[in-house]
């Protein structure tokens, strides 16, 4: 069903992006209000569309015929079903809150108009991503959010490190995009269409040759690893913390980085063509999640802890994807959006309150000076730790449960190992999050100046998200999986599992919290002992598994070298050199032959006579 509201959902933030810059240049105060209003309006449209969704009904809207010509049909069409609805609600809902928060956070920055313009542009791109009806349209959003991410990470561009971080994010995403393009090429040639509603039909999927199906699945996953920061492409996400904190909350925690999970869910038919693909996804996710969790333990920058935690949680979502529990993965996307946005924004308030200090070693005791922020951060910490009845508990529990129900032949004999690994990661998560909470809010203040609580415009949205982190899981838990059964395959899970189940399910989180509490508050001496014993582990963890160095050595350095070699040798010496050499040879031959012309009349006369004699000899009949 065509519906103009759908177009407005995307267009309003787009217009907001232009207006907030143009009008914001005249009056910077307006920019944030305009941008926030635009996203809120978009949210209202999404809600009204969502309310109108009944049964299997969907909405669509064609913006342009785009790549349709001859007999190729690839219109720029957006499409609204239950899956898009969930994503849109998160994007615009959490997005509005973060916009509101940004008004306070960026109040003293002179380039506010630019900031809010980018932020609105991001929302528009993200909406195109989740609303696209065909893969190329999704790709528009996919690249659009990448661009906005690049622009916003490098928002304070006068610092070359920040600008480089933006470039790194863009380039690593581009590597993933190769997979996206390859998958589109394969699917187009096998299925004759890139429409997502067509691509998930079994009879269409049957047309894909099996080896191509494998490549397409892996290619799509490669795309997802780029955007959703999984191995081997995750190192850009921690660097992306160079951007302003609201950006980290919106793009690098709540929305953009979950695009990979959304893509997997949308294309689940392709992902499951070859059973090896989900298995690869699962192992990659497990490795990523574990590595990121271990790194997070030793980080001192509050945003870095959250960044690695995001990577780890994204890995958790991919675990669910790997076992085919897509709606569970999306459930974690939603709850993660609540508590991680809340964590980032609280961290932003802390950074704001501590005069742009990000190092937790120079914080501490902030519970007194920032009670509201402390409350929100605490609630969200409990949520991410997976303590019942906080939001994170339900989604994490569902993931752990779905891991037990895997049917993949490649995973069959590893069921316990995977479950054990996931539980260990959950313990780890609770540990490092509690550590960050303790270092930031408990103890005594170790920094300079006087920390102060953030203004209302910042604390209000944080508190809203904190409330969502507390009750979000409980509320959504009941209907979520059945709601998504239309666009996604059903999952076998029974919500939460009663009071006893909840208590048992919270055990890993409680262990982590207790361990952190014990080590950082009760007996710090033991902590130092452990650090001494595990010094190798600490080196590896604080060195971030040396992934940047390894990538630099294995990928970047060879390409740099290749670039220089190709430029100096193949280009300058061989290609251009050959051209110049041919020119040089002709010139040398010319120099030699022109010696014939001496400028002396006598030589010319001699040549003339000789030639005349030769001609006479040739043409006169000799008797």
């Amino acid at each position, binding site marked *: 069903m065509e519906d103009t509201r759908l177009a407005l959902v995307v267009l309003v933030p787009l217009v907001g992006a232009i207006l907030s810059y143009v009008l914001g240049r005249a009056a910077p105060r307006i920019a944030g209000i305009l941008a926030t209003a635009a996203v809120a309006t978009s949210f209202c449209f999404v809600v009204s569309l969502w309310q109108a969704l009944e049964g299997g009904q969907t909405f669509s809207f064609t913006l342009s015929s785009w790549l349709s010509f001859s007999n190729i049909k690839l219109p720029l069409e957006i499409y609204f079903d239950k899956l898009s609805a969930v994503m849109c609600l998160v994007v615009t809902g959490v997005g509005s809150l973060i916009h509101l928060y940004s008004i306070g956070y960026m109040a003293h920055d002179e380039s506010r108009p630019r900031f809010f313009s980018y932020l609105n542009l991001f929302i528009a791109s993200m909406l195109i991503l989740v609303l696209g009806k065909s893969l190329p349209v999704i790709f528009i959003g996919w690249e659009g959010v990448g661009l906005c991410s690049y622009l916003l990470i490098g928002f304070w561009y006068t610092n070359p490190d920040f600008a480089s971080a933006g470039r790194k994010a863009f380039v690593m995403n581009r590597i993933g995009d190769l997979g996206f393009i390859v998958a589109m090429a394969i699917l187009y040639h096998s299925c004759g269409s890139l429409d997502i509603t067509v691509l998930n039909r079994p009879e269409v999927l049957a047309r894909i040759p099996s080896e191509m199906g494998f490549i397409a699945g892996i290619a799509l996953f490669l795309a997802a690893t780029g955007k959703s920061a999984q191995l081997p492409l995750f190192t850009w996400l921690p660097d992306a913390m160079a951007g302003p904190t609201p950006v980290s909350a919106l793009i690098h925690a709540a929305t953009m980085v979950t695009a990979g999970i959304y893509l997997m869910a949308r294309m689940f038919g392709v992902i499951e063509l070859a059973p090896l693909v989900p298995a690869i996804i699962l192992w990659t996710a497990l490795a990523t999640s574990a590595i990121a969790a271990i790194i997070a333990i030793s980080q001192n920058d509050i945003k870095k802890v959250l960044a690695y935690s995001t990577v780890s949680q994204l890995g958790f979502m991919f675990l669910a994807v790997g076992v085919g529990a897509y709606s569970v993965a999306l459930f974690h996307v939603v709850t993660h959006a609540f508590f991680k946005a809340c964590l980032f924004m609280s961290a932003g308030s802390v950074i704001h309150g501590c005069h742009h200090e990000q190092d937790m070693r120079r914080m501490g005791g902030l519970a007194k000076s920032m009670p509201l922020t402390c409350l929100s951060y605490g609630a969200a910490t409990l949520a991410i730790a997976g303590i019942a009845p906080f939001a994170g508990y339900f989604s994490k529990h569902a993931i752990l449960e779905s891991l037990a129900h895997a049917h993949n032949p490649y995973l069959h004999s590893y069921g316990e190992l995977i479950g054990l690994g996931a539980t260990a990661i959950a313990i780890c998560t609770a540990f490092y999050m509690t550590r960050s909470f303790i270092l930031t809010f408990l103890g005594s203040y170790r920094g300079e100046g006087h920390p102060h609580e953030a203004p209302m415009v910042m604390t209000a949205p944080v508190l809203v998200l904190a409330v969502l982190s507390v009750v979000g899981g409980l509320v959504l838990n009941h209907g979520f999986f059945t709601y998504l059964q239309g666009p996604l395959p059903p999952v076998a899970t029974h919500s939460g599992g009663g009071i006893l189940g909840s208590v048992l399910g919270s055990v890993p989180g409680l262990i982590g919290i207790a361990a952190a509490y014990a080590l950082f508050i009760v007996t710090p001496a033991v902590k130092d002992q452990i650090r001494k014993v595990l010094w190798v582990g600490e080196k590896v963890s604080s060195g971030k598994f040396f992934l940047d160095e390894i990538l630099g050595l294995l990928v970047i350095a060879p390409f740099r070298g290749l670039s220089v070699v190709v430029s100096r040798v193949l280009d300058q010496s061989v290609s251009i050199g050959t051209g110049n050499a041919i020119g040089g040879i002709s010139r040398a031959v010319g120099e030699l032959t*022109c010696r014939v*012309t*001496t*400028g*002396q*009349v*006598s030589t010319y*006369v*001699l040549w003339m*006579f000789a030639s005349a004699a030769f001609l006479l000899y040739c043409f006169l009949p000799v008797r």
Partner: protein
Amino acid sequence: MDPITSYLGIACLLFTIGGIGLCLRRNAIVLFMCVEMMLNAVNLAFVAFSKIHGNLDGQVAVFFVMVIAAAESAIGLAIILSVFRSVASIETTDAAELKW
């Protein structure tokens, strides 16, 4: 000896002397005279052949040659003069600039 043959012989001789002079001498005026000598050798041959064939075609050709020779000497001397003005010499070796 047949008088015609001796005429042609002298023409050949003159032509050869002129040609050799052209190759060996450096003085532009002398070169010029050599060219004139070669032209006159040709004239002599023309007249001789005219006599052999008994018509006036050769004689007519001689007039053309003479006219052209006159025109040529007019232009040639002018060139020699202007060369002399620029390099202060009429030796052809001194005016060997006109090459690549």
